[in-house]
């Protein structure tokens, strides 16, 4: 071949993002497969399970919703618990404003749809390292990061739905999700305030595990956020 059909210029922010997004296929693929398996197990149809992965495109909340539905929680409680899991993305949204706030509305809509843990964390660290990036370059990079991940997220959900029953229980795929959450959250525990928030989250959630589905987690999360904020203020005052 004398001509390349794909623009792989190292200078293109889209392809730089694409390259940085590729390793996250490793996370998205098994995670999505497990979602497909669990959703089908719980009694969802193929269209419903795919609907979750395409329309919601937020793994943690999809699992939270299925878990609540298995427990036959009310529709309102399913929604409350699942959306509470996604509240962290309001923080992502807020912290992207200084970098992407000036982009056209349609681009911000598109970025918002693709704003999940991996795209956010990869993109924000690039923006911080390269303050000279233009707004269009930042948008292109963000979409580039999402490009390799999203097809695997959707495609492997489908594989999970189809292959569901054929995946042996001995593979312990049920536990890939907790491992991924722990792996994502552990590097974020970087101060005493974070440690305090984590400890409160765990202990309150365990203590309230018998409450109606999801309520314990909401109380635990609220208490943990407040603990983190107050401990942080206390530490700052002690330093001052």
């Amino acid at each position, binding site marked *: 071949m004398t001509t390349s059909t794909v623009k792989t210029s190292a200078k293109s922010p889209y392809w730089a993002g694409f390259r940085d997004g590729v390793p996250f296929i490793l996370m998205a693929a098994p995670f999505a497969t497990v979602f497909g398996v669990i959703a089908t197990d719980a009694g969802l149809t193929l269209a419903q399970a795919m609907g979750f992965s395409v329309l919601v495109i937020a793994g943690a909340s999809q699992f939270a919703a299925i878990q609540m539905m298995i427990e036959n929680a009310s529709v309102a409680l399913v929604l409350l618990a699942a959306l509470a*899991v996604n509240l962290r993305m*309001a923080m992502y949204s*807020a912290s992207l404003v200084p970098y992407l706030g000036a982009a056209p509305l349609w681009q911000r809509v598109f970025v*918002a*749809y693709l704003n999940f843990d991996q795209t956010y964390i990869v993109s924000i660290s690039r923006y911080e390292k390269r303050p000279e990036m233009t707004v269009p370059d930042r948008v292109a990079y963000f979409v580039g990061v999402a490009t390799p991940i999203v097809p695997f997220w959707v495609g492997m959900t489908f594989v999970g739905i189809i292959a569901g029953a054929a995946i042996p229980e001995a593979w*312990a795929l049920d536990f890939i999700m907790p491992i991924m959450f722990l*792996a994502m959250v552990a590097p974020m525990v970087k101060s005493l305030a974070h440690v305090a*928030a984590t400890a409160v989250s765990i202990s309150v959630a365990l203590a309230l595990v018998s409450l109606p589905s999801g309520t314990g987690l909401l109380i635990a999360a609220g208490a943990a*956020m407040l603990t983190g904020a107050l401990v942080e203020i206390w530490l700052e005052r002690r330093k001052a």
Partner: protein
Amino acid sequence: MTYSAAEIWTIIAIMGVGTFLIRFSFLGLIGNRPMPSFVLRLLRFTPVAVLPGMVAPLVLWPPATDGALDLTRLLAAFAAVAIGIWTRNVLWAVVGGVAALYGAMAITALL
């Protein structure tokens, strides 16, 4: 599960729209207007406030073992957390956690 198809689609639709609105919120609507600093402070703790509480019962009482404490899963969880704190790298933490899970399962199978 005892939901009608309409109820399930309602859940999917509202979750889809709600999740989008959460993601769009500040970026789209509030823009560059300043937010109360205490709200920002609370929001910064969201991941460490939600995820550990969500995972903790799954680690101690895994549904796959009908809630019985499982050393294999406990070890895998510990490995993911320890490597994540040590390396500050999500991918290494995932690799370490998964390796611990299957390593411990293989050893158990051999014994």
